[in-house]
């Protein structure tokens, strides 16, 4: 169970105090560009630009970015392999065939597109995730007509998440210290492992309840009635940064357009 390193990075980010709307718009624009623009150069440029933003002005360490990307990369690879391998008795001019399995030009192109789209898209999401704490995003939603109670439930979820998470980590540690990880070699050891896991999950459930109940009574003492509204200072827009964001997306599209035009001219 790794710590929530992406969250830590978001809180420490030099862009934390930039307007959420600007960062959100940038991230969404990059994601959409990755999906809609021609894969080469559009999607590739989005990937490169996102990685550059993350490692450059957003000051995220390379190891941190790789850590965050490792889980999606596994899924992307699995998906790419299944797209790459075509099934069926009679593929159209395959590069390679073995029984019902084949690799065809279409499947190669499709798998390539998928990998680039997914990598660039995930990096574009990371631009938002590594610079914007979840709570800022939820506040932004509250300010943009998402009903208050929904945002409050989500915000409290975010707060409780770390408390419940640390309980889970501590319980796991304790179980290891008390030899709760016997190698599964027999029915007996398998039973012990399952019982430990169920005990941990059940305890986490009970503790989540207990935490909620206690926080409720703590909030009652603070005078909470219907709303949990808070106040935070205004964040002035950094016009240069916002212009930079817009310029970046525009530049990617300009390159795409030029690329297409040059290729058409070459034809």
């Amino acid at each position: 169970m790794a710590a929530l390193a992406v969250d830590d990075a978001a809180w420490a980010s030099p862009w934390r105090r930039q307007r959420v709307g600007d960062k959100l718009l940038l991230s969404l624009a990059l994601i959409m560009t990755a999906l809609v623009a021609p894969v080469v150069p559009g999607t590739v440029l989005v990937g490169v630009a996102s990685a550059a933003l993350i490692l450059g002005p957003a000051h995220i360490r390379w190891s941190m970015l790789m850590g965050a990307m490792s889980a999606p990369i596994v899924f992307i690879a699995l998906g790419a392999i299944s797209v790459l391998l075509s099934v069926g008795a009679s593929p159209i001019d395959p590069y390679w065939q073995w029984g019902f399995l084949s690799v065809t030009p279409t499947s190669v192109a499709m798998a390539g597109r998928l990998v680039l789209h997914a990598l660039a898209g995930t990096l574009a999401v990371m631009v938002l995730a590594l610079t914007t704490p979840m709570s800022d995003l939820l506040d932004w939603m509250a300010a943009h007509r998402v009903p208050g109670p929904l945002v409050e439930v989500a915000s409290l979820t975010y707060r409780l998440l770390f408390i419940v998470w640390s309980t889970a980590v501590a319980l796991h540690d304790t179980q290891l210290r008390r030899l709760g990880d016997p190698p599964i070699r027999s029915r007996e050891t398998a039973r012990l492992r399952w019982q430990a896991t169920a005990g941990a999950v059940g305890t986490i459930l009970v503790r989540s309840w207990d935490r909620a109940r206690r926080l409720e009574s703590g909030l009652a003492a603070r005078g909470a009635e219907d709303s949990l509204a808070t106040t935070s200072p205004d964040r002035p827009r950094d016009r240069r940064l916002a212009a930079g964001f817009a310029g970046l997306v525009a530049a990617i599209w300009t390159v795409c357009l030029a690329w297409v035009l040059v290729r058409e001219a070459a034809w």
Partner: protein
Amino acid sequence: MSTPVIEVRDVSAGYPGGPPVLDRVSLTVERGSRLVLLGANGSGKTTLLRCLCGSHVPASGSILVEGEPLGHDRRSLRAHRRRVQLVMQDPDDQLFSADVRQDVSFGPTNMGLPRDEVLARVDEALDLLSVTHLADRPCHQLSYGERKRVAIAGAVAMRPDVLLLDEPTAGLDPAGVRETVAILARLRDQGTTVVLATHDVDLALARGDRAAVVVDHQVVSGGVGEVLSDAGLVARARLDQPWPLALAQRLGLPGHPRGLDEVVGLLQAP
């Protein structure tokens, strides 16, 4: 003598299905005093504090605030909370916002104060608790001691007349205890009445004016030196005698020395 800021009269309180935790308890809190509330784990200290802040409704008896009985309807409670604030022992039971500044702003925002006033009070409270540097950090990254201060800041931002604190020094290192004590002294200098529940008898003796001991569902109160000199009461309440009193008793020194300086003074007296 002026009207006590809070007066508890014959209050009984408990939880559904359980025996009474407090049984016809009376207590007065004088304005500007430092009252320490002592008692074993589970003795009912926290229940008493919750009654004082209005979040627990007594089964019987009454609580007078500046001589006026406290009602438990929404309107009365709202008025009461502007005057009396409770900080619980575990900061995770009160901090609900991810962002420190926002969490501290909850009380003033909830009071309906104008935006500028809210932000000014938040800055003031953060400054008083020496946690201004944490304003933009998330609660979940803070240490236990830091979260405890932020929780106190959340109450202080409401500028209450009475601040009730449940074990504000529990779990802190000695320097953290000293810092918290200094903060409470500053609050008192600003006119806040502080009621502090603690297990730390040395601290209670050194810093309290009056002490109230919760024992056997009852409350025994008096001057802190007298109360803690009563060996029978201290034992029944599962407390310890503070060392200056224990030493004075063993050596037959007069009076109730409250700390190192007073003990040294008594010992070096001709």
